[in-house]
């Protein structure tokens, strides 16, 4: 009996530090693969060096993580969540986010206006969906305007995402004198684009494969993917049409009910550090969201990388993020029924 008690006491002593250290870590929810690696290498490690608190990651798809956090409402699995700007509104609308006090994030003072998404979530980096094409496979089309996608030379050559048609829906609405809220004005225009489509890609890898092997030499493509393929030697031209490119912003927020809110604010502050922002831009070829980030000139001149307020204001088509959260399901249904069939 004595031996059992001593063994139990020894076990308790061993477990106690493990329990304490488990409580000290910061849990971050983010996409997997290179996204997780980037957040860990550029933000997480700096945060740990500054605070001594390790970072643990929960990875998964955008909607998968949303569903898991909804089920865990009140007792969140993560302290911080990275997600897209409009999906962030779904979190916020369901009361899953803490309201942010940006006074606790000194680096947010230079946050660009377009990255202040809501009282609950702010941008961390940005990108655009725009026209990318293979100049070696399609010639004589400058793609100076979104309207060039409707040209006969593009027939049977275009690919667009099947998971989010919001870019083309809003572009068609703009070309028809409407906007995201009056998107129905662009329906006829979008139906006229149907002959141009050859395929709809299901994910980033699929998009890269289709344009790299020339199956779809014109795409509505994520700028980061285009720059990545160009770096791999694929001859891709990325253009910002005169109407602008459709902006996408990835955001960060603190989960409601997190017991590490103070640490979370420090993590966000590290994420918005101008040097970290410059490194993120270099790694992913996206836009920093703070105006005091100093980018490598070669990165700054890339299409879709915005470094000044003027670029943000003139080159970006911004779909209201809250409206986009409300409309995405309806847009996907209409697009699948009328364009993808």
């Amino acid at each position, binding site marked *: 009996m004595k031996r059992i008690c001593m063994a139990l006491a020894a076990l308790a002593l061993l477990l106690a530090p493990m329990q304490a250290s488990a409580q000290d870590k910061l849990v971050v929810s983010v996409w997997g693969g290179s996204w997780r690696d980037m957040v860990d290498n550029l933000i997480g490690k700096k945060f740990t060096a500054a605070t001594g608190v390790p970072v643990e990651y929960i990875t998964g798809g955008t909607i998968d993580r949303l569903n898991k956090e909804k089920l865990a409402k009140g007792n969140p699995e993560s302290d911080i969540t990275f997600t897209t700007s409009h999906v962030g509104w*779904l979190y916020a609308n369901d009361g899953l986010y803490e309201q942010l006090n940006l006074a606790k994030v000194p680096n947010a003072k230079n946050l660009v206006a377009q990255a202040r998404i809501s009282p609950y979530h702010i941008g961390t980096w940005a990108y655009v969906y725009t026209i990318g094409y293979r100049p070696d496979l399609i010639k004589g089309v400058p793609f100076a305007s979104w309207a060039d996608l409707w040209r006969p030379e593009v027939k049977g050559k275009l690919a667009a995402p099947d998971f989010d048609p919001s870019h083309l829906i809003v572009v068609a609405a703009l070309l028809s004198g409407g906007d995201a809220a009056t998107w129905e004005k662009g329906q006829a225009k979008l139906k006229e684009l149907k002959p141009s489509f050859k395929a709809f890609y299901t994910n980033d890898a699929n998009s890269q494969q289709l344009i790299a092997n020339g199956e779809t030499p014109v795409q509505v493509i994520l700028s980061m993917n285009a720059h990545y393929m160009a770096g791999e030697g694929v001859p891709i031209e990325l253009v910002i049409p005169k109407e602008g490119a459709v902006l996408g912003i990835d955001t960060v927020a603190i989960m409601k009910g997190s017991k590490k809110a103070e640490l979370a604010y420090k993590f966000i502050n590290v994420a918005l550090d101008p040097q970290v922002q410059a490194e993120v831009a270099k790694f992913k070829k996206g836009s920093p969201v703070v105006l005091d980030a100093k980018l490598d000139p070669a990165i700054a001149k890339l299409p879709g990388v915005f470094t000044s307020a003027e670029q943000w204001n003139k080159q970006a088509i911004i779909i209201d993020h809250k409206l986009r959260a409300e*409309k995405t399901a309806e847009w996907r249904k209409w697009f699948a029924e009328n364009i993808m069939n």
Partner: protein
Amino acid sequence: MTSRPFLRAFVAPATLCALAFVAALAAVMQYSLRAYVPGSLEPGGFTLANFAALLKPLYARVFLDTVWICFLTALFTLIIGYPLAYALVHARNVALKSVILVIAVTPLFLGEVVRTYSWIVVLGNNGFLNSMLLKAGLIGAPVQFMFTEFGVVTALVHVTLPVMVIMLAAALSHIDRDYERGAHIRGAGADARRRRPTRKNRTALRCRACRRSRSCACWVGSP
């Protein structure tokens, strides 16, 4: 009547799992009967509108397309898989058997994504097939194989072929080779030898010499 004193105890875990599974399905199914509220993760009240939307002709057409592609896939998988399975079962050389087995099941070793991308390399406009046809001068411009019914059925046949071959081989291996030899001795042609002994639940094959005699010892096939 034998007693089964442990039946309830042994069945209880499986029953509990089944009940939990049904409960989970019901929890998801109820969303289909509730209204979508834009921008919210919570569904609205009871509605049949979600099912009414399925009555659009578009969804019937999509369903029929699915059935048609499934039919074509099953048909072509059977046509290609049967000879493979037959060769696998009847090959005498062990090395040859192994080669046929490996070739037949290799598609299962690949992940779905890798397998799909590899078909782009074969069927794409700049892929192997078009390149060969262009070089041979049989076509003047690439033929569209990707994103067509042909391309979809080809890829589906590729992925279902291993299952078909293994199932057919398992069935063929249970047929006594003596039936085939008996049919051959009695004069049945090669095609009849292959076809008739392998049909399940058909009446016995009568040998040519004993066509009118049911007591003939050369009756073959399943009863």
